[in-house]
């Protein structure tokens, strides 16, 4: 799925929509200033907390002054409330079945010793990150900009496991099932299906995050890592991989995590798109971590604007900063040492010479030349997915 024309077409489309339909969706900067809870969840520092069952925790903006997100600040998003609270590491296995020559039941020990161990540094972002940018409100958690993070993941290649099991000729879909369960027996479970053609050697089954075991709330002991893809595909507490020839119709595949399947990926609240498609590749995005909206900074002081930028793995070419409401843009300095799937850190030295309010804008451009649109040009969609508007923070120079 390429989004090369995303920006160009969306301006035209939203202009047309606004002109003809009073009930058009509007997109703006996501919500800021969410309160950090005073209650810490297991292995986490206190975070922005939306729910305990299932656990939903967001990282603060300040987290993104660094290109690697600490495990104890990493966002948490489960779908269903019933998560095992005890895992027996000796008996835990990951099962590979379906259209394979040989069914496998691999223990954690075997996984760590019988397969090549590999690492990839990659951004993990919820498809609904920044959902609070959409009006009218769209279904799901009203995240600010912190349903994302970047970590170094260690594990084994999915392809190595599948090769060991031996795929049958008609193998086409791979279903991933984790251990989270609904509280009510008829509620659909969270299973993801990916097409074999979508999976490359970068997809791994990870047991380590930033040199430590995966935190329990981030999917201990094993999770799928699909670099470049939104996190709904990164199944946590992965326990079963099933190979099939046909796509199974499952709620979380057919109803959730989908965007309009039209040229602009947009719709209006009154006219929802009939045809939808799953979200897969992440679009180009940046978030300013410092300074934050509402802060006061001193006249003539030496401010270093910091933040992160990323896309789906094409890589960030540049991050442009504007301090004059978008009239002129200057390039930020970039730090890229963790590969193309990782956060690119950016820094921009700014000396405020005028008193009063000033807006700092950040716009990332990737190696394909795709760039972030202004927030108002991000197409509204009823699930509130894939927001990637130019980030704007407004500070006061005193």
């Amino acid at each position, binding site marked *: 799925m390429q989004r090369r024309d995303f920006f160009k077409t969306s301006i035209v489309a939203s202009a047309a929509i606004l002109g003809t339909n009073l009930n058009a969706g509007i997109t703006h900067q996501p919500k800021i200033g969410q309160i950090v809870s005073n209650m810490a969840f*297991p292995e986490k520092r206190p975070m922005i907390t939306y*729910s305990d069952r299932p656990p939903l925790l967001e990282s603060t903006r300040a987290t993104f002054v660094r290109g690697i997100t600490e495990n104890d600040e990493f966002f948490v998003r489960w779908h269903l409330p019933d998560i095992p609270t005890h895992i027996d590491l000796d008996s835990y296995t990951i099962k590979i079945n379906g259209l394979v020559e040989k069914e496998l039941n691999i223990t954690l020990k075997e996984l760590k010793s019988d397969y090549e161990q590999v690492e990839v540094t990659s951004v993990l972002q919820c498809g609904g990150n920044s959902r609070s940018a959409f009006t009218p409100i769209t279904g799901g958690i009203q995240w600010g900009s912190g349903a994302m993070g970047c970590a170094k993941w260690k594990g084994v290649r999915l392809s190595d496991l599948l090769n060991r099991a031996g795929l049958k000729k008609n193998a086409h879909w791979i279903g991933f099932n984790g251990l989270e369960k609904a*509280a009510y027996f008829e509620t659909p479970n969270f299973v993801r299906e990916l097409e074999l053609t979508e999976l490359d050697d970068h997809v791994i089954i990870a047991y380590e995050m930033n040199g430590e075991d995966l935190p329990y709330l981030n999917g201990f002991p094993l999770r799928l890592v699909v670099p470049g893809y939104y996190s709904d595909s990164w199944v946590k507490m992965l326990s079963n991989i099933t190979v099939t020839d046909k796509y199974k119709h499952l709620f979380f595949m057919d109803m959730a995590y989908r965007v309009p399947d039209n040229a602009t990926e947009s719709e209006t609240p009154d006219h929802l798109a009939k045809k939808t498609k799953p979200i897969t590749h992440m679009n180009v995005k940046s978030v300013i971590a410092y300074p934050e909206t509402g802060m006061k900074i001193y006249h003539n002081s030496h401010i270093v604007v910091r933040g992160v930028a990323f896309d789906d793995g094409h890589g960030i070419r540049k991050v442009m900063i504007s301090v004059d409401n978008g009239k002129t843009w200057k390039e930020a300095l970039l730090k890229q040492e963790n590969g193309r799937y990782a956060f690119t850190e950016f820094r921009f030295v700014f000396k405020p010479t005028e008193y009063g309010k000033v807006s700092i804008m950040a716009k990332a451009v990737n190696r394909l030349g795709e760039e972030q649109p202004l927030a108002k040009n991000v197409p509204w969609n009823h699930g509130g997915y894939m927001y990637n508007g130019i980030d704007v923070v407004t500070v006061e120079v005193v």
Partner: protein
Amino acid sequence: MKKLLLIAILTVGSLFAQVKSDVEVPYISYQIKMGKGFDAVQANCLMCHSFGYIINQGPQSRLFWDKKVDKMITHFKAPISKEDKVIVVNYLFKHYGNGKLK
């Protein structure tokens, strides 16, 4: 809370320690507005997720709450009777509504 802190301290630096004992996810006590119909919310809405999940939507219209409860019934198979649905929607609109019908 005290117990939780203990767990957190024990796990620092030791591999796998988190799961040697059971993990405890804390309970949050949400500020819930009491009023007519809350019983129905408690009976119908809190078996699958916390109250936080519901109020995170912010103040919304009556239609919004009506559709949201429908979503729970059709997609997630929530066993909610027609009568209870009306009571729940009334409660949500009264306490977490924005005054608009649509």
